[in-house]
């Protein structure tokens, strides 16, 4: 697993950055449309993404 993270480090971090930049737009859309499900779903995704950054960033 560590080998995998090492080999694809730049790609994985780039993906984490793209997600970090994109997720708030979906959060915003969910909040504007009053969709608690969408907001919670994307907050969960944001947490998972932050967890990845904290571990491997």
């Amino acid at each position, binding site marked *: 697993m560590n080998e995998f993270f090492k080999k694809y480090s*730049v790609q994985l*971090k*780039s993906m984490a*950055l793209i997600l970090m930049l994109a997720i708030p737009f979906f*959060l*915003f859309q969910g*909040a504007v449309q009053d969709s608690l499900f969408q907001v919670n779903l994307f907050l969960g995704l944001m947490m998972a993404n*932050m967890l990845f*950054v904290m571990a491997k960033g």
Partner: protein
Amino acid sequence: MTALFVAKWMAAFSPILTVLVLMIFKNWSGSRAGAAGWFVALIAASLFFGAHPKLLAYSQMKGILLSLNVLYIIWAALLLYHVVNETGAIKAIGIGIERFSADKSIQILIFGWIFASFLQGVAGYGVPIAVVAPLLVSLGFSPVVAVAVPAIGHSWSVTFGSMGASFQTLMAVTGYGYAYLAPWSAALLGIAAFLCGICCIHVYGGWKMVRHSYLAILIIGTAMAGTQYILAVSGMWTLGGFGASLVGLLSGLAVAKLKRYNQTSPSQATSQMGLAWALSAYFILIVIVSAGVMIPWVKEFLGQVKLSFSFPQIVSLNGWVVAAGKGKAINIFGHGGALLLYSSIISFLVYQARGYYRPKAVKTILQKTIQSGVPTSLGIVSMVCFAMIMDHCQMIYILAEGISRVFGSVYPLIAPWIGLLGAFMTGSNTNSNVVFGVLQQETAQLAGLSAALILAAQTTGGALGSMIAPAKILVGCSTVGLSGREGPVLKATLWYGLIITGFIGMLTLVFSFMM
């Protein structure tokens, strides 16, 4: 002060403490520490400050808009740096300056203090550190010193730099005009200019080198602080940082010719590229940024497309209200990042036409830009996002209120620290003024203090916060190969930031007694 307030204050401080401890004592990278701070802020906000999913959603969107404004600059600055570096120009600039003046203190003052302040005057948002740090490395300074010096050196010029954006914000949020705010702001920032110059030298060579450089610091500092004061109080505050550093540059070049600073024989090393060609990318940058910011029709033409979002009023479960309004707009073609991008493209074409690139240079430039940009961006986004959570849940306000309650009658002593805290959290003097401007104004009025003096201390602290803001340190580290190892730089700048802010606080207190 109740035990409940103390507990809330500790909870509000926990994300900041997390980032500081992890970066300074555990040597975590900015991105990892930022993500950890985000989690701590999320937990504290949910448990103690009434955060709810919709509040978090809006705060994160505002955080991304703020981050994109910064990332635009960073990616373009990194691109410019790699466009220049790939030709060997950075090395050539180092050799060229060494031939002009071999005195290390003069090199530090010209690049780390004056040129960094000039770049702050025309661009800002971390550009001074991103551009100057690699230049100092090419002159033989260690990467930590190369990042710390411009971080310290440019901070005094932040309020009146970037065409006075931070000062404009201070006027907007408090409702005061420049005639009321400018004199004290320019005075305190002028004093900070001298202190920044001294610290730039001290971080490299200690007190021995400070003694060697005192004349240069005195002459250049007086020229810059004086020019900034005159421009600010005469209504030309938009040019305060730019004009001051331009005069500083001229006086710096004159000082370099003094006998005192010409005792070491200049290096005889040569490079294939002449100094003028090596610096051409920066000349192009100066011309483009000056035109984009100062020529009204160019500014208007480039500023036609803006990305912005409207936010409704947000109320936390504890009743803290964030007013409805527009988030930070992104000026797609007139943004500082766009101007840097134009400079990068034109510089690339110029160097390409001169035949300075090896085959496949474009691929190498893009690869290196991505490699250094991604970790930096992760750190900035996570930190700005957790600062926005704190802002929307009253956490930043609680921190400031706690500080002002503890210090009561000696509030002027603490006023710059509040500005510093805001800039540390958000990486921006402007944001610090937005968050704390009104709080400082109201506290000053309640305490019967001069609002002009307290607000000057606020914006000076906010400007000085630039030297310790992780968001800016990350930018500099990414350009000198220190990505993921920002801790030592933060450790170096933190002490200087705290000392200068403490000194400004003491001066504010003394001035408040005199008024």
